[in-house]
């Protein structure tokens, strides 16, 4: 916007303003009506949906669902879109940071004088794209629950080791499923394909000790399982054994 356009805008705005109505009571009446609607919606939601409380937080528990409030779903789903491990920091913080900087600086790089949405094709298209993307990612996040079931056929080498190994494998599978690993990792047909790497064949890539080290000392955003290893070493061992057997 150059100086002439600025002055033109201020002049036009002054004309429109002088032809308008006073803020009180006209705009105040509209705002108050809207406030009543907002209050009614909040009260209705509080009555209908309530505020139920889940089970108490338990740091040693193995059954949890690390899910954010629904309006963070789009950020959470963004983590799953980008899969390469090297790019995960980019997805978690890089993309949101860049988007936020772009949002903050919007009036400084979009300096055109035009204000009508149909005459600002780039801005309007970008805006609609962002709205649709956020809506779609929120929908994805809402529909994708963390699976608590992992169906992986018992590997032949486990089956050949006898019934005890099979029982341990099944127990480990259950611990892994209940620990919510599938919220971020894929196990064959089950689980989400991100942000963590697929674990379908993790045993072929990492020995049991390395898996155990990662579980105790994971890289963010994965939570540590050191509490589980202290509280219930048996379950932890089953978990490691199960993961190491995935080949």
């Amino acid at each position, binding site marked *: 916007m150059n100086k002439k356009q600025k002055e033109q805008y201020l002049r036009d705005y002054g*004309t429109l303003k002088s032809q308008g109505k006073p803020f*009180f009571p006209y705009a105040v009446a509209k705002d108050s009506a*809207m406030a009543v609607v*907002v209050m009614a919606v909040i009260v209705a939601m509080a009555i209908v949906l309530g505020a139920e*409380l889940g089970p108490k937080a338990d740091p040693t528990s193995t059954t949890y669902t*690390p899910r954010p*409030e629904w*309006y963070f779903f789009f950020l959470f789903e963004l983590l799953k879109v980008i899969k390469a491990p090297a790019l995960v920091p980019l997805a978690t913080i890089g993309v949101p940071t860049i988007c936020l900087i772009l949002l903050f600086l919007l009036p400084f790089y979009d300096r055109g004088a035009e204000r009508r949405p149909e005459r600002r094709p780039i801005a309007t298209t970008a805006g609609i794209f962002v709205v649709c993307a956020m809506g779609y990612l929120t929908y994805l996040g809402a529909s994708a629950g963390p699976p608590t079931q992992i169906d992986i056929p018992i590997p032949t080498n486990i089956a050949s080791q006898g019934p005890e190994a099979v029982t341990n494998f099944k127990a480990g599978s259950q611990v892994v499923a209940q620990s919510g690993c599938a919220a971020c990792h894929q196990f064959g047909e089950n689980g989400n394909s991100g942000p963590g790497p697929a674990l379908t064949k993790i045993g072929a890539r990492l020995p049991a000790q390395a898996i155990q080290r990662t579980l105790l000392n994971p890289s963010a955003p994965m939570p540590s399982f050191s509490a589980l290893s202290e509280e219930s070493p048996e379950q932890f061992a089953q978990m490691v054994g199960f993961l190491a057997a995935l080949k």
Partner: protein
Amino acid sequence: MAKLKLPAAPSNPLSSPKRPGKDYGPSGGLGHAGEAGASAVDWIDERTSLSGGLRWAMFRKVPKGTNWFYTLGSSTMFAFLSQAVTGVFLAMYYDPSATRAYASIQYINNEVFLGEFVHGMHRWGSSVMVILIFLHMARTFFFGAYKYPRELNWVIGVALLVMTMTMSFSGYLLPFDQRSYWATIVGVNINGTGPLVGPYLSEFLRAGPYFGATTLSRFYAIHMLMVPGAIAALMGFHLYLVAKLGTTAPPWVKAKPSEELSEEKVTVG
């Protein structure tokens, strides 16, 4: 020739007009109460000169064509006020310690009069506020209202959006049930992957390298003191700028000089 009618004689020529400052409005107790109110307002105004600012803010004109989309900002503020009021009542019973937080929320839900209702209002009010702030931002964006001379107000608005999201993130932990605990752990860990400040930020949030006993009280302080104070201050500045610069007119409303002005122009030219 028609005569002009004489004006009617005063009904009671002996009564003098009322003395100024005396017995205006209804007489008796109501009149005295009104006078007391007026003098109280005068007393305050003499010492603060607030009435000028109030008149400036309330009787400024809103441009032609302003529609219902322009109520989204004030409804966001109203949702914030609702959160503040319900939050104060929840804070009366809430105990931000890792061992007692869950029990105190249970107490609010089950024992306190209307406790679950107020808790529900606070919980769902946050969703309503987030939706409203996004709608308000979308209106500003699509109407091009962030352009000259309102750039600074857009920047403040984005800061308010970030703080609103911070509020909902920090509030999510407070009930201290399984959902909130594990979601917060993952959220804080995600923060930790950020460039440069990431690890420091998540350590600040956790109040240490691990999720410990002080984490909850830190989240509580952030949730009920730090961020709401900043939101209130920035909201005040946001509103001041709105009153000073005026709300935008919808971009498709054309400015036409009024009839009288153009007529004047013709006669002068």
